[in-house]
């Protein structure tokens, strides 16, 4: 628990900064987008026309049916802004929780202490998870509050829960991916750049797959796992993606754990 405590302490500023920024943006953007939603849902035909004419909206998985719901524009904002920001954060934290010891050369300090290497790995993973999910939970609560204020007529609670929780699930997959890549490439000096790049690449793959109709490729794009229109049409998540996500999370973390226990620890 000592490693966990001190790792978390080191991430304190990051957690606070991200939580505040996510909360502030949720408070500012959710009213704007819900108002836009209200204005476009007045005329269903116009909305249908708008979606069918807009290739971007189609590529990002938006349907007229979904956008016509009170929570529709929140789903769009959540899926195409907040989840991506949270994914970058998760990937960055996952990467840097390991790489910082190799780039900063503190690996000689932490891995020569009377702690099993695997335990240090798990303590760091736990600290990284708490950091990332704290930001996710803060966003979850603030966005609920913002919706309650801005949609006094009410909204589908089950849909909100699915949409907001998808952010936490995406954080889990990108955190696990970050941990794994950090183990394979511990001397990466620019974890933030790598995090942004990888998240962007997965978004591009998903958008390409959706546009071209290559369904199998969607499995390589976590941001496409929990689209708002799919949740609306299926009444929940597409469970194939949920199982796949859990499989990937477990695979990345367990592979990272076993590789890390065996590998040479070489600082820069």
């Amino acid at each position, binding site marked *: 628990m000592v490693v966990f405590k001190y790792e978390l302490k080191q991430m304190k500023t990051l957690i606070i900064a991200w939580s505040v920024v996510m909360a502030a943006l949720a408070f500012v953007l959710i009213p704007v987008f819900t108002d836009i939603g209200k204005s476009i849902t007045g005329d269903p035909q116009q909305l249908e026309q708008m979606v069918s004419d807009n290739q971007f909206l189609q590529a990002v998985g938006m349907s007229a049916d979904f956008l016509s719901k009170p929570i529709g524009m929140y789903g769009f904002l959540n899926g195409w802004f907040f989840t991506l920001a949270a994914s970058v954060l998760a990937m960055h934290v996952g990467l840097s929780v390991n790489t910082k010891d190799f780039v*900063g*050369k*503190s690996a*000689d*300090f932490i*891995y020569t*202490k*009377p*702690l099993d290497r695997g335990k240090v790995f798990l303590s760091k993973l736990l600290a990284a998870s708490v950091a990332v999910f704290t930001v996710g939970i803060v966003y979850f609560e603030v966005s609920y509050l913002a919706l309650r204020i801005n949609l006094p007529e009410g909204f589908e609670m089950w849909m909100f829960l699915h949409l907001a929780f998808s952010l936490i699930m995406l954080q889990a997959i990108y955190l696990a991916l970050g941990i794994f890549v950090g183990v394979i490439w511990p001397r990466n000096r620019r974890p933030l750049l790598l995090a942004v790049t990888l998240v962007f690449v997965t978004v591009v793959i998903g958008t390409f797959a959706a546009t071209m109709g290559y369904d199998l490729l969607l499995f390589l794009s976590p941001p496409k796992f929990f689209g708002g229109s799919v949740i609306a049409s299926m009444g929940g998540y597409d469970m194939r993606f949920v199982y796949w996500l859990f499989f990937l999370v477990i695979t990345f973390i367990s592979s990272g754990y076993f590789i890390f226990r065996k590998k*040479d620890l070489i600082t820069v």
Partner: protein
Amino acid sequence: MNEPVIEVKNLKKYYGKQRGIEDVSFSVQEGDIFGFIGPNGAGKSTTIRTLLALLKPTAGSASIFGKDCIAHASDIAKDVGYLSGEPSYYENMKAREFLKYSAELYGRKDSSRLEELSERLQLDLKRKIEDLSMGNKKKVGIISALLHSPKLLILDEPTSGLDPLMQQIFFDILREENENGTTILFSSHVLSEVQKLCNKVAIIKEGVIIDTQSIAELRKNGYKKVSILADGGLDEDDLKMDGVADLNIRDGSASFIYMGPVNDLLQRINSFQVRDVFIEEPSLEEIFLHYYQ
């Protein structure tokens, strides 16, 4: 006979095709201050990092306190203090917080040792690590290695960055620790400090241990530094004899390192028209250079 605290047998480490160490064998007995000397790139840090299980050996074995270094790394680490060659820690932590972290990793909560060591080494614990000079970072590393009063100290180039006064204080601390039963493995390329502190030394060259001796033995072994000034001059042939090394002839005078029967040397010197002669104990540096040629 004391039990070896460190036992290294035919240790080999390759990074892919690149050599780290080729064949390293030595043992360190309880109570030793064991010098480990060699130039940069000879394999000192690789050996130490393998002992600490940061690297897995390609072949051979290493044990500390009779336990395999890799299989029992975390168990061994309880009684080992380590100072790396380039100490680098969590930059955004204050020195006190970092050292508290270090102590807690060994299950220590008492800060009296921390206060005592920081006072002796004149380290300001309130400063952030990123604001510390190289020398002060080294002090943080030294305190971190000594905090839990380990049975074995492994120090990799520990004096780099420390001013001479601080080196003296550091050596005093090490001697005290040694008197209290701590065994020390002291890696360095500065031979005078090994000479000052250690009782035994292993010399490593290109990944291979080329000699292991006590410091006294190393000096006693007949190594003499000889300088002769003779009328009529000297040339290489005049000094062609067993035991002569590092021969330098300049302006008719000769200087060399000699290892062999002193009588033979005196007889040869006697055959010249000697104007002046110096026979002195060579420094470890000069003996060391001899090993490298």
